[in-house]
């Protein structure tokens, strides 16, 4: 596990407002942004498409998605979540409005030889739909350690499969072996306090329990960021917002 000091990301916690200590039934918001902190400017890397070019390149070139960095430097698809400060396995208090997931199913499609969305954060109980809306066959090969042993199934054109996953600290890697460049990532949580950064690198976790927690981040290109598996301490004020800005440094991975 990385130490806080040697983390791949330089943490810059900017606490905006604090208002007294939080009670168990107080709720706040955590939001922030992850930006590119690499020594050199990020350059998208084009994928050499070796088969089904007509279809795969029909909507333009494909690029590697290990890092997806927007024009303003925001890093997309960073998993961000909260966990108990002392016991990572402890259950978090859950806001009444978040007792159940809003949707039963979450879709990961393969419309043009890439997984869309590339990364998905799920809540245990939600079903992952592996879909193939393209006119060619793909397979879905997922591996996620002991909690999600994985499988390797063909999904013909227009087909779909249902995948039930368990909450786990290990990410689930998804790939298509027929088109070796296709990769995707899924993380499954047993609470609702997680987010994925958007195209601007922004994330927001609403109705989080007020108090002292750790904020954990994971990105496929660098792995654990921001204090490793334990994350960085954060104090969530009741009815307020705490902001967390991070820089991603791929050189330190």
């Amino acid at each position: 596990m990385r130490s806080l000091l040697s983390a791949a990301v330089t943490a810059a916690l900017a606490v905006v407002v604090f208002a007294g200590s939080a009670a168990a039934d107080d709720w706040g918001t955590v939001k922030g942004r992850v930006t590119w902190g690499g020594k050199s400017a990020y350059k998208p890397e084009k994928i050499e498409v070796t088969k089904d070019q007509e279809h795969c390149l029909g909507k333009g070139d494909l690029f590697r998605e290990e890092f997806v960095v927007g024009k303003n430097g925001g890093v997309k698809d960073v998993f961000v979540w909260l966990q108990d400060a002392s016991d990572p396995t402890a259950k978090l208090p859950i806001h009444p409005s978040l007792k159940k997931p809003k949707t039963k199913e979450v879709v990961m499609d393969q419309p043009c030889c890439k997984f869309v969305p590339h990364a998905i954060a799920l809540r245990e109980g939600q079903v992952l739909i592996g879909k193939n809306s393209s006119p060619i066959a793909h397979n879905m090969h997922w591996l996620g350690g002991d909690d999600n042993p994985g499988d390797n199934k063909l999904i013909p054109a227009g087909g779909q499969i249902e995948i039930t996953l368990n909450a786990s600290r290990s990410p689930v890697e998804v790939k298509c072996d027929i088109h070796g460049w296709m990769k995707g990532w899924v993380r499954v949580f047993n609470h609702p306090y997680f987010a994925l950064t958007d195209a601007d690198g922004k994330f927001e976790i609403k109705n989080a329990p007020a108090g002292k927690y750790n904020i954990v981040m994971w990105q496929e290109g660098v792995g654990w960021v921001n204090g490793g598996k334990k994350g960085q301490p954060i104090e969530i004020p009741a009815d307020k917002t705490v902001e967390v800005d991070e820089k991603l440094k791929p050189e330190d991975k």
Partner: protein
Amino acid sequence: MHLKGQKDPVASRRWLIQWVLNPNVSHPRTRMPIMHLKPAEAARVADWLLSQKVDDREFQEWNDKDVPAPTQEMLKNLARVYLKKAPAVNTLKVDEVLEKGFTDLKTEAPLMTDDADEQVLVNIKPGDLNDKLKYYIGKKAVGRMGCFACHDIPGYEYAKPIGTPLNDWGKKDPARLAFEDIVAFVKANYQTVPARDDPTDKAKPAKKWTEAVKDGKKPYEQFFFDALEGHMREGFLHQKIEDPRSYDYNRDMKWDDRLRMPQFRFAHPRRTDGEGDDEFKARTDQAEAEAREAVMTFILGLVAEPIHPRYLNNPPPDRLAEVKGRQVLEKFNCAGCHLVRPGVYEVRADQQTRELLKLSHDTVAKGLSTDYGDVKAPIDFAADNAWGAPPPADPDRLQMFGVRPGIRKPTPRQVEQLGIDPDRDLLRFRLADAAAFVDPARQVKVFPAGVNVGVFKDQVVSESRSFGGTFADLMVPYLAKKDLTKYKMEGEGDDRDSNTARRDLPPPLVREGERVQPEWLFTFLRNPTPIRPQVILRMPKFNMSDDDAKALVNYFGGADKLRNPGIGLTYPYLTVPQRDEFYWRERSADYVGRLEKAGELEARGKSYLEETQKRLEAAREAATAAKDDAKKEAEAQRDALEAEVKALKEAVDTKNAARLKKSLEEAQLYWSDGYRLLATTGKSICLDCHRVGAVKAKEEQGPPLELAFSRLRPDWTEHWMANPDRLLTYPTPMPQNFPRGQLLFQELMSGSSLEQVGAARDVLMNLPKVADMPVNRSYRAATSGGK
């Protein structure tokens, strides 16, 4: 091999490159294989080898005593030693021969045999004398010193051993042993001591033993001295091994009559930190004495008495094949590259272990409902040990076969659900065979092969690691480092691996006997040909004899028959029932019956009629265009199609199911639809990664499917296609293309996933015949863009 002593570095390098390229040029019987390298690659290997630093001290003596080239006089003197002993060559003749050789051996030395070494000295041309003498001396010296006993030297295959036979030495009469003046020798050179080992710690030499070494004399055990003095065979043997030439002591003899047995050194202990010279020497002598005693025990046990058959190992044929094959595996170091056997783990199944296994089983079963674990349907291939396992004989003791073990901590989910200690170590491995256990509710559950299972490390009673594959294991991280995009490492900790790298490296040979046809394997071992297009290392060509190859073929057959008795494996002969004419007709009838049962007969009849009509149009055009002899054949084809279309059309138009069935059976629809399943460009999933004869793959990632006909066994082929992950020791990139319970590719071939798997297997086992069916020939031409 050490090349430092070579005088000419350019010649050394050239020789080494040639050796790496094809060692058979220098040594026709070497075990070093041909690696299929290009000259530039061999040069790089040679350069790397030559750049390796060696400990020059080891070779100092060689360099110091660099012997000058012998003069002709020296050669003559040496040759004289042997010539004088040659039959019917007198002293005068020796000198004459050494000047100009024999002129006619039959008249000059009539007792000489046709293969006598002296034949080389006949009719020596001027200028050749030195070379001829060197050859003669060398040949004689090798024969005399018995070098051929350890080294493989051509020409000495039938040479007699130079030593005394040992097969009954253990009962040799001591009166027939020549003790000579050995007691005097021992008294002059050794110091007797009561015992060798320290009575309190046998690993250390006795005090007096060490003192003798310090006095500058070699210690000698009193027991063996007494035995020597009493002319007992133990004493003789002990001294013979200790110093063979000591029996020449005080004997007046010529230098070339001295005893020839080498002075062996059996023990090679290493100096420990802080150990003094004398202590180390005493310990070395002690270790040598101990090893000598072991050799003596063996030789004294050689009494040439027949062993009662009851005590002879007489294994059953499969076990014998396994044992014999292991010797060949070892000879060619097959296990260096290939994983040959999975590990065996015996585990105590206490209550918590059962709970842990139950949780893992529940987790695994969630994702396996398409081929396994679904309570509503039986397991597809329960008799195959990749899918099924008998209930454990002792529910409290489990035996599991697995690969790639690693230690890890329980996941938070396991901690939370089972209340286990988060710091308790788990031993985790990938199951190579299915494994059964009894869950806490006393229900027998089975893990199929190919899934990862964790057990408590402290409950593992015995652990025998898997055998082989070290090179492949080392290459995985190397490849990942070299090309991270292609060979990305996946997983965490001990689990980190790259299955794409595994795919491109020497394959595991677990289940090899189940997988391949014996005849193909034999041919492949004798002359390996490329199989998978993307591998980074080709199987080298070994100097393997027919017997070696046969032993390996039988090994894989025998080993898998023992490990997986349920699949009915046969070797060394194999019958492929799918190639039987009766089977061919039966499948055709079954398939058409299946279409009728599913209500698809009429629709398929119509579509098949349309396809046949198209073929007829093409045949008509071909018949019109054909000339000479070809015209007759084209017209015959056209006429046959006319008749087929007519019969089909009548059956379709009149909706006569019986006639339609008959027509489709005669058209062998099962086989043509099965072929469509494999080889329809743009629709068949196989063509994404495999070539099927003339039909190209989108991107070749796997072996060409026409190889399956001669290479793969039918049952394995079926099981592999049903779920590839069960049969490999790593997660294969080949997906489950016909997931159970899903109806895919119905437009190519109607049927359930298992029926499609069976059809694909049948077609592969008959591929040349099926691909050559007229319907498939024209069909292939139409879909693959022409022949």
